[in-house]
């Protein structure tokens, strides 16, 4: 055992220095110089103040905005310092009750008669999902147009423009970033 002690200690210290200090610091250095926007969290500034990150969802409740998905991150949802899903199981009573409330909310806000789109009434895995499906955005377009006294085709055109297709046409699912959509709305006034 003792003959193994020197290599164990020496290699552990060396690898700690290489993989635990030099490697992350070197990546940080290169990333900060070459890709500072991404490296610092893809933050969006408006008038000099940070209003969020293009990758991180935020809560919207005003009828003038597109709404994102229910969030289980933090106490009030969309807490970007405490990511979390609901972790409620398929037959949890608490989940059924939450979904009942969310379905009723979507139906009353957007006046739909049929079933509610799944993404608008289910909590995401991270609680920070920045996206909704394009279908869920189109569904909200009449309400947003009405509240902003904008022509509905103009709102729908915004969704068209900001909808992101699958990567390379294959990977992932089509989506719309809710914050980007609402920023575009605000810039129209």
């Amino acid at each position, binding site marked *: 055992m003792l003959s*193994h002690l*020197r*290599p*164990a200690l020496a*290699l*552990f210290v*060396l*690898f700690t220095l*290489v*993989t*635990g200090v030099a*490697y*992350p610091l*070197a990546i*940080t250095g290169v*990333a*900060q110089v070459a890709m500072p926007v991404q*490296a*610092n*969290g893809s*933050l969006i500034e408006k008038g000099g103040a*940070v209003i*969020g*990150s293009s*990758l*991180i969802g935020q809560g*919207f*409740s005003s009828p003038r905005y597109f709404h994102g998905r229910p969030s289980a*991150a933090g106490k009030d949802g969309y807490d*970007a*310092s405490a*990511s979390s*899903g*609901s*972790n409620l*199981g*398929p*037959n*949890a*009573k608490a*989940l*059924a009750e939450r979904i009942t409330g969310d*379905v009723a909310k979507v139906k009353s806000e957007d006046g739909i008669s049929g*079933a*509610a*789109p*799944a*993404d608008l009434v*289910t909590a*995401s*895995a*991270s609680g*920070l*999902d920045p*996206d*909704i499906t394009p279908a869920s955005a189109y569904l909200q377009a009449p309400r947003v147009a009405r509240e902003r006294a904008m022509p509905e085709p103009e709102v729908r055109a915004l969704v068209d423009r900001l909808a992101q297709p699958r*990567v390379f046409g*294959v*990977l992932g*699912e089509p989506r719309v970033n809710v914050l980007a959509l609402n920023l575009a709305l605000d810039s129209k006034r």
Partner: protein
Amino acid sequence: MTVNGWLQIALFCAITLLLTRPLGGFLTKVYSGERTFLHPVLAPVERSFYAIAGVRPDRDQSWSAYAIAMLALHVVGFLAAYAVLRLQGALPWNPQGFAGVTPDLALNTAISFLTNTNWQSYGGETTMSYGSQMVALTVQNFLSAATGMALAVALIRGFARKSASGVGNFWADLTRSVLYVLLPACIVLALVYVALGVPQTLQAYASAKTLEGAGQTIALGPVASQLAIKMLGTNGGGFFNANSAHPFENPDALANLIQMVSIFGIGAALTNVFGRMVGDERQGWAILAAMGALFLTGVAVTYWAEAAANPIHVALGVDPSAGNMEGKEVRFGIALSSLFAVITTAASCGAVIAMHDSFSAIGGMIPMINMQLGEVIVGGVGAGLYGMLLFAVVAVFVAGLMVGRTPEYAGKKIESREVKLTMLALLCSPFATLVLLAVAATSAAGLAGLLASGPHGFSEMLYATTSAAANNGSAFAGLTANSPFWNVLLAIGMMIGRFALIVPMLAVAGSLAAKTRVPASAGTFPTHGGLFVGLLIGVVLIVGGLTYFPALSLGPIADALATSAGQTF
């Protein structure tokens, strides 16, 4: 299920298969001490490490010396990781000012990262300083992965060598795994992740004022450097609580594809290393074929289960066409979330892009079964191959019993000693899983952690002890595991699952290395054909199925029946 969904699954499989042979050739060179394109730069570094550590890389160790060297590194690593976690409040790179981690959580986390489990009783962004993430956790991500790779190579040498007294040199295998494989790949991967949007900073969390005027604190950190090794080393410990579901830890489907390929890349290539080292690549392909058949079955069942909407929720007015979206991200959808869940549990990764606790009962059962089968479907880097080779030993033993001949595998006679040691290694994980589950299910402290009630609550516990003993690290995360009871219980499970398997496995390696090679004869059972692949799959399923069916019927199977009857708990 959609055509596009299956297209993505096919694309992932194709990329992984295309990488297997070139990467296998590269790894074979590295572990044989031959020159690669990296040697002009890295060979001097390697030599200086050996000089400082007093290691002679060409000096072979017996299996027991190899095991003791491995354990010595783990003792040192455990003490260091535990100390860093406890003292993080006084250490640098702690812009959020997090206090030291509690003793039971530090114990659990240190063992978790040491054993390549990366079970997380904590939420990363609310608990760990940047310094702890780098110096305690990232280091163990590298070393535990390198250890797994070294151990697999030691077992391969057991088959490949003849009349040898040793199985290689642990320090050389470890150093080569880090310097020539993991570190160079991680440098490239980390920069690609940053380009795709993964943060890499030592600055404190950002404060934002949202469009509606609320405050939002946005957790940041040196994420990309840890993410790269977390996936490549099949560690799986997330920088953030939501792991790779967090948009910063997996910004889009391209980053996700790279992460999925990273999980399987080295594990799949090691099957080719096995084939090359025993002098018949077909032996490696046969192992990979068995893994692939089990993998695709799991993917199909999980994808089918998740693409079907939950009948309870459909009755409440949810559109069934999108499937079960609770706990899933829009950018990944059902197909990728299902595929990733199977990959991460087939390998011993444990990273998640969707919350397994919110999967349908059957969709959540497949990840459990993957782990319970011993994570031999590609598996953790190294761990998957040595696990599957142990099953191969059992398979040829069963075949030998049927025809009344001493079984052989890859040119080595498999005799009583090897079979006994193999069974010892294979039984330790089920033992730990089920005994610890019984302890948890019969104690108030165990039940106190549950979020769900009814059969799903049992599933949460079963998933936890399974994940710990299989060194996976994913969770039915409704379970609140950050209590002294669960932290200590799962730490015990992780230790048994790792070391009680490794030591007998190394003994098998040593025993095989000492044997001469027997030339294949007309009576030799060929282990590169379809019959062997079928037998191997059968052995894996029978051992796993007989062991776990009772527990599964109390958890996910009862859960599925309740859901289809519309019963909530």
